[in-house]
């Protein structure tokens, strides 16, 4: 288009119909007619198979099918009772599994992959743990269990906080937008202007790949090379996210922090009540300070005198948010300001001239009580210190506290003050090391420290004044107690003044080109649709972006989600590149089937479970996975669906398989709401629920990436299913599978003490979902007997090895 004046360029972009070579995925969605009678999915699949003269495999045997459907829909293997009842009709089983509360845990995790949710700490240096992402995880699980309509689901995640009050039902809309803030971005970036735009870019990339299977971030620096996305489209969208705040504040200096914003996760009334109390507390605090200041003025001026021979040299080690310890020489009496928000601590090195009892006098301020742990020479002292609130942190609020160190030998002495994770830490101002243990109500040493601050005046009050102060403080304490402690969740909110961004050529935060691009929806689904949801000047436009996505006229949204659902059932999508529907992505193997499914999704009211029912009831889904010379030759990679594509299971399913084999997960009944307290041991929660078996936490954490889970906090659109020698070594030698194999062996021996055959049968059925054939049974019994008779091992050890062998077998770790 060359160097055309910008307004004209914009006009053309909006009005010119898409180029003739637009990607297939942007063609309007029209419902195709299945080519034959019968199940529509099978009709589309059969038509392609017929072209190469290939017959689809017969339906898998009932054991395999039950295991397949149960793992696929709930992530758990079928129980032995369910295996016993497997004669019931497939349709009934589908309904039972879709109603299982475990369904949400399995399919919610699929979505969490797209939303780049990682449990606990992200293993990437420079990216802090994203606390409080768990409410979002539970929201996703809940939404799948409720079969929340997909249009609503995506709207809540992008703009739940902006939905009109009439649509703000429950807490879901408050939690859901955490989708935008759980991304990994480099908080320690030294260039704040670049970071702001990087942060926006991360949100754009995640959202456009998730909902549109197009990565708009390619167009940050230049017009997209292959797909109809211009830098103007990008910056129209970037304006929307730039006008959205996901941090509570944003310091220019990285050391001062850029924490993610939080909000109470509670009903409006409760939040209001808490705010009411907060206001009252603030008013009382002002009254208190006024009172103390007055009292201070009435005190006779006292000249400062030196505290006799008490001040020694200090050094401090200071953990300031950067991952380095720093040793700082302090001037006499100087303390240190702490910046670190999580687990703050500060350590001082004292040099004691001779043995004896010492105390530290610490001048501090703490709005709310912030008692700190005291560690002397590496040993924690039982009682916490500096626990009294000073109700503010201005200079007027500083007060001296006494920290007794007890009897110490002469020489070096490290003293550390530490708060727990996310606990408040007082602001420290001055330090003095003194001999002896001064009483805190002794005036003499306080007087010697110079004129009192208003806060310090409290120690010099008359009887009546002290009574007044006590009254105020009692009232304050009561108020604090009555204030409800509201759980928190990650918050997203619109900026006070939305802004439009000009194009930043090359992504350079310091260069712009032309006028700001008005916030708006992308043009790739047609100009009419782009203009259909005008963004009001006072809002960011997230809601309008969500409406544009959820509009049935948008050709991408339903196609992308229908393809994802297919992908999660079959291991690969009808479009193999599930996150790329552009020209460089794969084209659909069965375009009509994809469109038919997309139309079903929309017309079924965006119900995801509706699509599950359609897919699971097809012969294509139920077909056996067995390869044979014919289907290997004509359908080598399985894209024609001549057989069910077998594949390695995800790490969560493998872990849960071992876990459930020893009866650790209580199955919750179909049709009941999920009770997460009973599920906490499952892989979905295990890294944040502190319920790992003793000593196994580290091993579980390491197991995730070993089996293809990317724990670096980027979206996982397509899990890595590779099988590696490192995994084989893990099965052989890692303590984790051995731990579960041992427990399983003990259980088997206890339940079936004298019947090895029964033991082998139960083991095989529990792990692999079917009774063993005679050869497999013989191999298991032969191995166990050999180990006991010839190697002199105990029965428990022998069966532990048999169980370990079955864990590492293909039938256990694969979905077939």
């Amino acid at each position, binding site marked *: 288009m060359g160097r055309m004046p910008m307004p004209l360029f914009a006009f053309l972009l909006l009005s010119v119909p898409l180029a003739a070579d637009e990607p297939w995925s942007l063609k309007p969605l029209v419902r195709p007619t299945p080519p034959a009678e019968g199940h529509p999915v099978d009709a589309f699949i059969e038509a392609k198979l017929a072209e190469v003269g290939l017959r689809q495999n017969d339906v898998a045997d009932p054991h395999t099918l039950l295991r397949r459907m149960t793992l696929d829909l709930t992530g758990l293997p079928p129980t032995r009772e369910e295996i016993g009842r497997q004669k019931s009709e497939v349709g009934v089983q589908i309904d039972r599994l879709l109603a299982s509360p475990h369904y949400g845990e399995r399919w919610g995790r699929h979505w969490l992959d797209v939303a780049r949710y990682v449990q606990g700490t992200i293993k990437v240096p420079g990216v802090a743990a994203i606390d409080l992402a768990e409410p979002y995880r539970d929201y996703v699980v809940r939404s799948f269990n409720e079969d929340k309509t997909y249009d609503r689901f995506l709207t809540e995640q992008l703009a739940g906080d902006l939905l009109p009050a009439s649509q703000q039902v429950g807490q879901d809309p408050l939690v859901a937008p955490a989708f935008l803030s759980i991304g990994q971005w480099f908080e320690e970036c030294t260039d704040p202007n670049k970071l702001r735009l990087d942060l926006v870019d991360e949100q754009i990339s995640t959202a456009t790949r998730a909902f549109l299977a197009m990565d708009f971030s390619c167009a940050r620096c230049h017009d997209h090379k292959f797909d109809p996305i211009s830098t103007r489209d990008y910056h129209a969208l970037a304006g929307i996210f730039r006008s959205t705040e996901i941090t509570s504040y944003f310091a220019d200096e990285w050391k001062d922090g850029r924490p993610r914003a939080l909000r109470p996760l509670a009903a409006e009334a409760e939040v209001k009540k808490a705010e009411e109390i907060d206001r009252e507390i603030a008013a009382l605090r002002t009254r208190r300070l006024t009172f103390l200041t007055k009292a201070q003025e009435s005190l006779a001026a006292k000249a400062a005198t030196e505290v006799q021979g008490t001040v020694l040299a200090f050094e401090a080690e200071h953990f300031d948010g950067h991952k380095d310890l720093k040793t700082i020489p302090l001037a006499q009496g100087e303390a240190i300001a702490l910046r670190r928000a999580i687990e703050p601590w500060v350590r001082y090195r004292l040099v004691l001239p001779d043995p004896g009892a010492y105390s530290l006098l610490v001048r501090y301020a703490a709005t709310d009580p912030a008692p700190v742990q005291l560690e002397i020479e590496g040993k924690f002292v039982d009682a916490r210190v500096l626990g009294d609130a000073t109700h503010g942190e201005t200079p007027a609020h500083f007060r001296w506290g006494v920290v007794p160190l007890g009897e110490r030998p002469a020489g070096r002495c490290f003293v550390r003050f530490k708060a727990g994770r996310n606990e408040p830490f007082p602001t420290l101002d001055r330090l003095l090391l003194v001999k002896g243990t001064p009483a805190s109500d002794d005036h003499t040493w306080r007087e010697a420290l110079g004129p009192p601050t208003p806060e310090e005046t409290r120690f010099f009050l008359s009887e009546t004044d002290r009574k007044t102060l006590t009254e105020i403080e009692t009232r304050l304490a009561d108020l604090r107690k009555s204030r409800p402690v509201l759980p928190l969740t990650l918050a997203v909110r619109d900026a006070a003044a939305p802004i439009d961004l000009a194009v930043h050529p090359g992504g350079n935060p310091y260069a712009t080109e032309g006028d700001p691009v008005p916030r708006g929806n992308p043009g790739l689904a047609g100009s009419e649709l782009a203009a259909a949801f005008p963004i009001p000047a006072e809002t960011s436009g997230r809601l309008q972006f969500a409406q544009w996505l959820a509009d049935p006229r948008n050709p991408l949204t339903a196609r992308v989600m229908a393809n994802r659902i297919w992908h999660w059932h079959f291991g690969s999508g009808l479009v193999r590149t599930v996150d790329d529907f552009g020209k*460089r992505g*794969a084209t659909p193997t069965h375009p009509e089937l994809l469109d038919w499914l997309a139309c079903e999704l929309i017309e079924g009211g965006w119900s995801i479970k509706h699509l599950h029912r359609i897919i699971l009831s097809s012969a294509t889904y139920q077909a056996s996975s067995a390869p044979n010379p014919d289907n290997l030759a004509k359908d080598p990679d399985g894209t024609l669906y001549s057989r069910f594509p077998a594949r390695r299971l995800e790490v969560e399913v493998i872990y849960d398989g071992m876990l459930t084999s020893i009866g650790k997960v209580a199955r919750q009944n179909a049709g009941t709401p999920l009770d997460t307290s009973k599920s906490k041991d499952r892989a979905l929660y295990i890294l944040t629920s502190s319920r790992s078996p003793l000593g196994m936490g580290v091993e579980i954490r390491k197991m995730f990436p070993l089996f293809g889970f990317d724990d670096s906090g980027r979206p996982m659109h397509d899990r890595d299913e*590779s099988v590696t020698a490192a995994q084989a070594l893990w099965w052989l030698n890692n303590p984790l599978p051995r731990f579960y194999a041992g427990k399983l062996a003990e259980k088997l021996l206890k339940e079936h003490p004298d019947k090895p055959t029964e033991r082998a049968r139960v083991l095989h059925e529990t792990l692999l979902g079917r009774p063993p054939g005679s050869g497999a049974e013989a191999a298991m019994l032969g191995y166990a007997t050999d180990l006991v008779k010839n190697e002199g091992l105990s029965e428990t050890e022998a069966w532990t090895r048999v169980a370990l062998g079955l864990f590492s077998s293909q039938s256990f770790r694969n979905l077939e």
Partner: protein
Amino acid sequence: MNKTSSIFCPGQSRPLSRRDWLRKSFLGLGAIAAADVMARGGAGTALTKLHHRPAAKRILYIFLEGGLSQLDSYDHKPALAKFAGQALPDSIRPPQFTFAKQGTVIPSPFAWKHWGESGTYASDLFPEVNSRFIDELCFLHSLHHSSNDHVTAKRVLHTGVPIEIRPTLGSWLVYGLGAMNENLPAYIDITPTDPNRPTGFLPGKFGGAAIARPDKKSPKLAWENLAPAFTKQERHLQFLRDFESADRGDPQLDEMELAFRMQTEAPELLDLESETPATKKLYGIGEDHTDEFGRALLLARRFAEAGVRYITINHATPRYGNLWDQHSELEAGHRGNANAVDRPIAGLLHDLKMRGLLDDTLVICGSEFGRTPTFEFFDGVTGRHRNGRDHNPHGFTTWFAGAGVKPGHHHGATDDFGYYAVKDKVDIHDFHATLLHLMGIHHEALTYFHGGRDFRLTDVYGQVVRGILS
């Protein structure tokens, strides 16, 4: 799409990418089942043939984490002494955002002199390396990038990009070349601070195997899950063969068999006790300050000998890594660190040379960035230290030795204060292009299709630095 890395499938609009191939086709599908084994051997690698005859078969990358000061080791700047205590002249503008507040110029606290026949002017920070090998080293004085914090700078050095998680140079090499020894991983990170570095869009199998730092629990350098957890594992393997044949009829135990082979080969390799006392002495093993790094480097040599392609050896603190990060106490800190690595590095070079390995091994030594000519205001609060330097990614020194590089050569230069690279500048993509070149790969030919486009280690940039090639 890189044709050499695809397997075309009839009847499908888009050829199956190598990623699909490796990720999806591990099951009972005849030939494809051996994908992982093939990825190690020649047949399954991304490149069917090398672009040119490689100078190097393997790379040993000695990484001094935290930022070795070029101004106190190999990049001598007389102006530092002349301007000591003064602000930088206007001609040298510090960047808009620095890691910390900048003070005035401080001189190098180390003694400088001419070393070797080449007369290379260097400080006395690495006396053993300098006195014995300075004429064999090839110095790159003009490497630069723009990430001035450790985390992103390290990522830039290893992957070419600061923020996004991309495959490391090592992963690219393994993806492109496969392994020389199929019983061992082809890429090993010794004592990394960032173990299990993610492989980005490349499948996890191209990642580095981490050899953890010895600690109280496991005093030896070792990798995970290698030590047999129970006896009679041959019998266990036999059970697996019997069971799988009976249960499914198609035992697929390639990975398991490979694991068994690794178990036999690797422990021998990891056992440094089989080395002679003379060799151990060479690396400074047994002496307090050099023992740990000496062991790491000796292990690296054993891996190199056994056919590992790419080995990083990280000199770092156990927890946070940035051992060479002397924001204060530059002299004491750098001296102590150098004492720990000087003898082992000289020992490694000597050992490689004696064994003829230096002919086809490239040794690299450097940091994620260098340091500033000015002191750093140590802390916004006190600002009292004036004896340390801040991070400086704008021009720093890395040296090479061995295969394919000019010995005794100096390439590029920084300005008078050693702040910015000014002559023959080498950016990170040039650096990577050169390393791939030395391994026989044209950097534009090693591609991986992901997210709708072909990715390269060097993105859309990169010029081989011909000036350093022998």
